[in-house]
C-alpha cells in the first residue's frame, strides 16, 4: 500500500533526525528542549514511567493502524451478515476483530453508495477512530481540511481525487462528540474473485475517512 508506511521505516527516519543533530553538533530546537525538560521532570517526580512511554509509542507505531480498519471493510464486503451488523452497531462489529480502545468508545460506520458519499472531519480538534485507523495524518488535523470540509466538501473531495456526481448526496460527519466515524467505502468493480485478504490490501486509510475511492 503505497500511501502507508512500513512500521520500521519511520524509526529510521526519526533516529536519523536525532543522529543528524548529534553528528553536526546542531543545538536542540526549542521544542525539543521543552519536551526533554518536561519528560525528565515528570520522570524525576515519579509521575511517568519511561518504559510506559515507550510502550505507548510502540502501540501506535506498530500495532494499531489503518490495517485494522481495512480488515473490517474487506470482511463487510464479503459477508453480508457482517456488513449488516457493522452498520447497525459499529462498535460491537469492530470489536469482533478485537479492535477496541482509546478514541473509539462508540464507532458508527457510514456506508458510501452511488447515492450517498460520506466523509469525516473534526472541525474543533482532531477526533479520529484510533482503534481502527490509528493516529490521524497531518492533513486531517490541518487548518485547510478542518476549515473547508464543512463549507466546501465537494471542492476538497475533487482536489483529493474524488469527483462526486451532482445527484449524489454528500454527508459530512463533524466528530464533535465521543462518537467516532468510519466510512465503509464502495467495493470496486472487478474484484469479484478476490480473497478477503486481497481485498483488505486494496483498502486505503483515506477511503475509510471518505476522501478517496478504493481502486481495484
Amino acid at each position, binding site marked *: 500500500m503505497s500511501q502507508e508506511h512500513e512500521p520500521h521505516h519511520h524509526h529510521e527516519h526519526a533516529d536519523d533526525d536525532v543522529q543528524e543533530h548529534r553528528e553536526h553538533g546542531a543545538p536542540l530546537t526549542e521544542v525539543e528542549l*521543552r519536551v*526533554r525538560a518536561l519528560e525528565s521532570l515528570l520522570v524525576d517526580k*515519579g509521575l511517568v514511567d519511561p518504559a510506559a512511554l*515507550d510502550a505507548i509509542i510502540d502501540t501506535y507505531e506498530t500495532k494499531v493502524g489503518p490495517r485494522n480498519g481495512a480488515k473490517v471493510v474487506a470482511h463487510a464486503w464479503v459477508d453480508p451478515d457482517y456488513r449488516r451488523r457493522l452498520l447497525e452497531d459499529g462498535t460491537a462489529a469492530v470489536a469482533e476483530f478485537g479492535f477496541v480502545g482509546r478514541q473509539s468508545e462508540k464507532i458508527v460506520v457510514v456506508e458510501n453508495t452511488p447515492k450517498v458519499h460520506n466523509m469525516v472531519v473534526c472541525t474543533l480538534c482532531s477526533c479520529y477512530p484510533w482503534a481502527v485507523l490509528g493516529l490521524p495524518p497531518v492533513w486531517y488535523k490541518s487548518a485547510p481540511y478542518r476549515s*473547508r470540509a464543512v463549507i466546501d466538501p465537494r471542492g476538497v473531495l475533487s482536489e483529493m481525487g474524488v469527483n462526486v456526481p451532482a445527484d449524489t448526496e454528500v454527508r459530512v460527519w463533524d*466528530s464533535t462528540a465521543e462518537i467516532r466515524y468510519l466510512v465503509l467505502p464502495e467495493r470496486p468493480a472487478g474484484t469479484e474473485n478476490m480473497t478477503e485478504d486481497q481485498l483488505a490490501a486494496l483498502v486505503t486509510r483515506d477511503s475509510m475517512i471518505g476522501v478517496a475511492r478504493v481502486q481495484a
Partner: protein
Amino acid sequence: MNGAHDLGGMHGFGPVEIERNEPTFHHEWERRAFAITLAAGFLGKWNIDMSRYAREQMPPAEYLAATYYERWLFGLEKLLDATGLVSRAELQSARKGGVTQAALPAAGVRVLAASDVEAVLRKSREAKVDEDIPPRFNVGDRVRTVNINPVGHTRLPRYARDKRGVVTVDHGVWVFPDTNGTGRGRNPQHCYSVSFEARELWGADAGPRDATYVDLWDDHLVPA
C-alpha cells in the same frame, strides 16, 4: 470559546496537502510529547474535555502557527501547572538544565506502569453514561441550535449555532463536555447526531444535495 480551534467554514488556508508515505510521527520529540500526554492523562487530575479546553486557550495567532503536537505540549504544560503537578517555574528551570528535586508522586495520582499500558489503551474512556435519563428529543424532530458564545469550552461549533436541523440518531446518554471541560460537572444528557442542510449553514450557494451531521447534546438544542 470562539478560539482559533473552531475552524469550520473559514477561508484562506489553501489546499489540503497530503504527504505520501507519512510516518506516524515526524520527530522524536513528537513521539515523546504524544506519550507523556497520554501517560499524564492517566494520573487522573483532569479529563479529556479539560485537555481539549486547555489546547483551545492557546492564543489564536500561536495556535494557527503551531504544529499539532506543539498544541498538545501547550495544553499539557497548562494542565500540569494548574493542578500543581509541575509548575511553570520548575519547567523554566529544567529547560535551562536545572536539577529537579526528586519528589514523591503527588497525592491522589495513579501512575501508569509499563505493564498496564496495553490494557489501558484497550479501554475506551468512559464518556458514555449508564443512567436512565430521558431524551428531550426524538429521532425525526426538527430542532434549532442555541445561539451561545461562551468563553469556556463548548462542542457546538460557531458555524452550527442558531441553525435549524433534524435529529437523526440518538446516541444515548453522555457526559456533557461544555460543563465537564471546565470542572462544572458531568451533567449527563442525551447526545444526538443532528443533520443540517448545507444551505441552512452556508446559504444559497451551497450544494442542494449536501448536509453536515454534527453530534450535539440536549443543552445545545431547542424545538424548532
